[in-house]
């Protein structure tokens, strides 16, 4: 990865985009990086569009502003493409990662219509989540997709780190650890 990666997350209140951004910060921190993970707060309510951010850097981070020219944008809820300018400011050579059952080729015309001509990746976090957890929790697959696309850390180290993190997080319900691990593994393979 380059010295500084900036990521903007778009999600809806209650979907866990903020949590995913904090999880990514944790992963990068465990990989020895300097990190920032922060949400943009407003009058939150379930379903309203929310934004969260990550800076992941090899050097200490001093800037404390939102991110307007991200390297990567992560869209946790596909329907936001219609209502929010999700591609705004994406850097040359950057990419957008969208949670969708559609392929990147299928989404291309819609994003081109909005003036975006950069890289597009998609991941069907709903399908993976239902398969592995029986419920719709998009965080784990989205996190794995971001790690894969950004190359912020090695897949093996990422999986080992996440197993420890889940073991801690789900200490009281270990039954979901394997499902989440499976979700990560599938997502690492299926993000295209």
């Amino acid at each position: 990865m380059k010295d500084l990666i900036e990521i903007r997350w778009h999600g809806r209140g209650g979907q866990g985009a903020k949590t995913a951004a904090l999880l990514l910060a944790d992963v990068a921190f465990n990989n020895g990086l300097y990190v920032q993970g922060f949400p943009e707060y407003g009058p939150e309510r379930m379903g309203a569009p929310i934004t969260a951010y990550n800076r992941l850097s090899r050097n200490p981070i001093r800037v404390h502003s939102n991110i307007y020219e991200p390297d990567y944008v992560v869209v946790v809820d596909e329907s936001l493409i219609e209502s929010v300018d999700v591609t705004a400011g994406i850097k040359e050579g950057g990419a957008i990662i969208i949670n969708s059952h559609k392929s990147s080729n299928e989404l291309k015309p819609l994003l081109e219509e909005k003036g975006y001509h950069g890289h597009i990746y998609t991941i069907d976090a709903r399908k993976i989540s239902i398969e592995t957890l029986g419920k719709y929790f998009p965080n784990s697959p989205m996190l794995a997709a971001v790690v894969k696309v950004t190359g912020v850390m090695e897949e093996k180290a990422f999986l080992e780190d996440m197993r420890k993190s889940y073991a801690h997080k789900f200490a009281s319900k270990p039954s979901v650890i394997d499902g989440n691990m499976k979700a990560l593994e599938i997502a690492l393979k299926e993000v295209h």
Partner: protein
Amino acid sequence: MSIRERLSGNEAIATAMRQINPDVVAAFPITPSTEIPQYFSSYVANGKVDSVFVPVESEHSAMSATIGASAAGARAMTATSSCGLAYMWEMLYVAASDRLPLALALVNRALSGPININCDHSDAMGARDAGWIQLFSENNQEAYDNMVMAFRISEHPDVRLPIMVCQDGFIISHGVENIELLEDDVVKNFVGEYRPEHYLLNASEPLAIGPYANPPYVMEAKRANLQALENSKKVMLDVAADFERISGRKYSFFESYRMEDADYAMVIMGSAAGTGKDAVDALRSMGIRAGLIKVRMFRPFPASQIAEALKNVKVVACMDRTESFNTVTGPLGADVRCALYDAGIHAKFVNYVYGLGGRDVTVASLTSVYEDMMKIAADGTVGQTYRYLSLKG
């Protein structure tokens, strides 16, 4: 050995509180400081501290209970934000005039209205004249470090005043960043035992705290409060020197960033100072002599030291994250301008109101302030001296 961690500003303050293990914490929740008493109450419940936690019914009561505990002889503290601090207002003055060394973790948030939950410094500025020590933090690390140092300053016999440790709401309080923590026993030894000279629960020395003062006494009490604040400057420096020995991190009245040969100086407080440093570096790489002063100790105000740091610059831009409605300056601007006047320094001076109610502060917006300073130097005249930054057309 320091501990590499990643924490939000609220987690950083709660961690410092756990390590300090105060006798009493009284608090009432308000965004964005709610997590501080929330985390701390879990430490109490899990036996990680032996503090008494008092979940009061309002911020007025939180400050009153903290005052009561401190007067009784306990090391006591609280946390709040915005309207919570405003609701403590009456009692803030009482804490200072009673000369009680209690602490308050303030997570800066705009005062209503319009009603808003995001960061500005209007809450802290409302407490500016209450007789407290006020320290501002740029990031989670500084919030933690300032909290660890707070009681050593406030409890010093030459000071004995309440202290407020400020951090920017959401930007710092809810942003997770790297931090270097000190080990528990290192903090414990640094902070030390609190042994008050005079306290209510000392049966061998009956005393009254906070009685009515007639006209023959009030001015003397205020003058003593002023002297204690004056004394706190040296105590703060001594504590910072001790802290540097355990942490390797250096603190003073303010941080001078690339000020040695600066022509254009920004004076700023809180999280935007870090953003400003990135702006300075970019300008420096283009050969522009930009510098920045980040004020840490706002009360008492280090006027002569700031004047000394600014004596050779061409233009000063002072940044206020609040509006004081005198139509001429913000509170930081007024203090800096006063310091320059008293020192006979005639640098051009411009004052900006910025970042109200969470308006985002960017490298670009702060760079525009330096560009304005360069224009002022080139024109030889300031023009509008009181300006708003990033105001929509």
